[in-house]
Each structure stands twice: as structure tokens, then as C-alpha cells.
């Protein structure tokens, strides 16, 4: 097949390469999406049982550069102070498992960072620009395998054992009785 239509192969390869554009794009200056308001639902439970919220797409979920920026900011802004380097959890909850107290959707994580949460999570609303919050959102989502491996940082800046962070399976926590 490939020997008969080399043009097709070239075309297919170029189309494949196009897919990499978004992944590597470095957008330095942009507002970084909307500010999420207090109306972002934090759980699936709601009166009437009908979901009304439309899911918000995180602007950087498919951008490797922004996610590695998020990885850097996670250290710089001392998220690692409570959630541990790599998000394994310490006095703050682990971010590498499948337990999400306030939701795992991008806008839910955004509002968790911006508004803070009871029992220790500070509100960073006035302190971190939206663009950087969205970079953190995508990095946090990458920690538990919510994002494709192709965009997750395959190398951590800290020492680690075993597989690189992006290739680990998310830890499944036993359900509390």
C-alpha cells in the first residue's frame, strides 16, 4: 500500500504532525480564560436531579508547555507544601488519586484554587493571575491521569521512584465506610 501511494503516506504524516501544534504552542500573554464564578457546582448532588451546568473546557488541557509551567508553579507557590511534590498528599489531600472532595472538572478545580476551601485550602483569587491558575488546573488534572499522557510532563524535577508521573496509574482509594 505504502509503496503504491507515497503521496498518501506523506499526507497522512503531515496531518499527524499538525496534531502536535497545539501541544507545543507557547502562548505567553493571554488572559487565560474566564473567571469562574461562585455558581460552579462542587458536587453531582443538586436539587431536582437535573444537571444544568455546561462543562467548562480548561484552556490548557492539551498544551504540554502550559502544563509544565503548572508543574513549576506548583512548587513556586508552595502547593507542594501541603499536597507534596508530585501531589501525593501530606497535610493536604492527595491529588494523584480518584477522590475529589470538591470535584475534578476544570472549573471546579479552578474555583477551589481561587476561592479556597474549608479546613486549610487558602483562597488564591487575588494572588495568582487567571492564566497561571488555569496552568495549575491542567497540571493538577494531569497528576491523576485525567489528561492524555502525550501532554503530561513525562519528567519530574524532583527525584522519584518507578515510572515517570504521567505514566503512573491513578491510585484508587478504598471507599470509606
Amino acid at each position: 500500500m505504502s509503496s503504491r501511494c507515497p503521496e498518501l503516506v506523506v499526507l497522512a504524516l503531515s496531518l499527524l504532525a499538525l496534531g502536535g501544534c497545539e501541544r507545543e504552542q507557547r502562548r505567553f500573554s493571554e488572559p487565560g480564560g474566564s473567571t469562574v464564578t461562585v455558581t460552579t457546582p462542587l458536587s453531582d448532588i443538586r436539587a431536582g436531579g437535573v444537571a444544568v451546568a455546561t462543562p467548562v473546557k480548561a484552556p490548557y488541557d492539551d498544551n504540554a508547555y502550559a502544563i509544565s509551567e503548572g508543574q513549576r508553579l506548583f512548587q513556586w507557590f508552595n502547593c507542594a507544601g501541603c499536597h507534596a511534590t508530585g501531589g501525593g498528599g501530606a497535610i493536604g489531600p492527595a491529588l494523584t488519586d480518584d477522590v475529589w472532595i470538591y470535584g475534578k472538572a476544570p472549573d471546579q478545580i479552578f474555583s477551589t484554587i481561587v476561592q479556597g476551601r474549608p479546613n486549610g485550602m487558602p483562597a488564591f483569587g487575588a494572588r495568582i493571575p487567571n492564566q497561571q491558575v488555569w496552568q495549575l488546573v491542567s497540571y493538577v488534572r494531569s497528576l491523576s491521569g485525567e489528561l492524555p499522557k502525550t501532554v503530561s510532563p513525562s519528567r519530574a524535577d524532583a527525584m522519584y521512584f518507578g515510572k515517570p508521573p504521567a505514566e503512573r496509574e491513578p491510585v484508587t482509594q478504598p471507599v470509606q465506610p
Partner: protein
Amino acid sequence: MNTNALLSGGPLSAEIGQLFWIFVGIAAAVYVVVLAFLVVSLRRREGARAAPPDSPAARHAVRAIGIAVGLTTVILVVLALSDFFANRVIAATPENPLRVRVTAHQWWWEIEYVDADPTRRVRTANELHLPVGRPVQLEMTADDVIHSFWAPELNGKKDLLPGYTTRLTLVAARAGDYTAECAEFCGFQHANMRVAIVAHDPQDFARWYDAQLTPAAEPVSPELQRGRDVLLGSTCVMCHNITGTDASGVTGPDLTHLASRRWIAAGALPNDAARLAAWISDPQGIKPGTHMPATRLDADDLAVLTHYLTSLR
């Protein structure tokens, strides 16, 4: 900002300059001699025959080759020795040096003066002040990628490696301004990564040092007070430290005495109020890729913030 490696500002760079001229002088002499022999051989009569072996002419030629090989060996040994002795002077551990810790970041320099007394440590950025005559030992490392420190008028280059400390000695022979640059490609803004080096007389240096030890000036007017409130309520505090206030970030340059510095953004802009305001509102337009995000403030807040920052002498 022009630097000239052959304009020596101290004994160490003078050593390098001397070595340079020895190499250039010898290489030029060898070049002239080789070309002269080439010209002579080209101008020889056509049809001249090689002398038969064992003739006096052949023995003469062999002796000439022997002398040339011997001379070449002597020249190479002289060059190697002059290199060795120059390096010995440059790499010697100085006695009683002023110790300064230099950490390279993408894309700025963190400068910390080491003192046994923690209250006498000075932390600043992108500006290195030296006392004239006293050797200064830089203990250098990098935070992210490999950088290289090069102050051509004071000494040679030295790389800064993450997780490893390299040392470089600087001695300034006369008071004045010098510049160091990053000499190892380190990313987008490698070209905008300079250190302003200021060599003072020892008394002036002590005065500068004591001024740097003081906390930031307290606001003396309502406007300055508002400027500080804007700063403490904005994104600045996540990365920057201003001693004497609640701003205590460590990942960005220390701003305690920002207004006393010559440049902002590691040599990208001269330090004045208008450029500072432009830098705060659009750092990515001035230095694309820098880790400083744009801070969105209304015109009034930006004005009082800039006013406060320019008061931090």
C-alpha cells in the same frame, strides 16, 4: 553596556589579556616565518633537482628540519607553560575574600552576600557591588538550567550548574561600572540576562552594604501607603520579597531596594518610573517568555504602585 575582554579592569583579566597577546604574538610570528619559507620555495629556479643523499646539501636540509622541530617544541612548551601559570593565578583561592552566592535563574541573577551573622546577609538581584582591591569569591549555582557568568573585564567565563557549586574570583582594580552577561544559551531570554557590576571604594561599599541591610522604607504619605496596599493585595507577593512588609516570596528578585538598582528585568530596561510601569503591566511584551505574569491594574493603582516601588531606595 559595552564590554571589552581586552580592557582589563583587574589583575585576573590582565592575566588573561597577557596570555592572549602572547598567543597572538607567537602565532603571528610563526605565520610570517611559514609564509616566508613558502615564498622562498615557490621562487626557486624551475628544474632544480633534489640533492642526492649523503651530499652536504642533504645533510644541511636534515639539520634544518631538526632545528625547526626543536623550535616548534620549544614554542609549544612556552605556550603550555604560560597557559599553566596564567590559570594558576586565575584559579588560586584568594585570602580573606568577600563571599557572594550567585544563583542563576531563567532569566535573572540572584545575588546573596554571605556573612557568618545572618542579620548581616544582603540579598539582591541583577546587581553586584564590589569593594575595589578586595578579592570577591562568587559561589555560583543554577536553579533550573545551565547558565554561565562572564564579566569580560574582570575574569573569564564560568558555568553555573544546577545542584553543583562552581567558584569564580573577581578583583576590580579601579572603581567603576562593569557588566556581566549569561554566556551559555539558557532559553528564550538568554540575551536579556545581565548583571550590573559596580566597583566602589571600600568606604562607599560599606555605605552601600549598610543601606541594603535596612528594611524597606515605611510609606511617608497616604499615596505611598496606598501603593504598598496595592502591592500587598496583588499577585506581586507570590514571588517577590520586600523586607519589612508581608511580601515574602522567594522565587522572584528581591524588591526591598529596587529603586537603588540601575536596571530592571536583568538589564532589559533602565530603571525609571515609566519603564517600571510598562514592565509591570506587560512583561511578556518586553521580555517574551519571562516567568513574570502581567499584572492587570487600573491606571490609578498602577501609578501609586509605581510611585511606591520607586521610593524603595
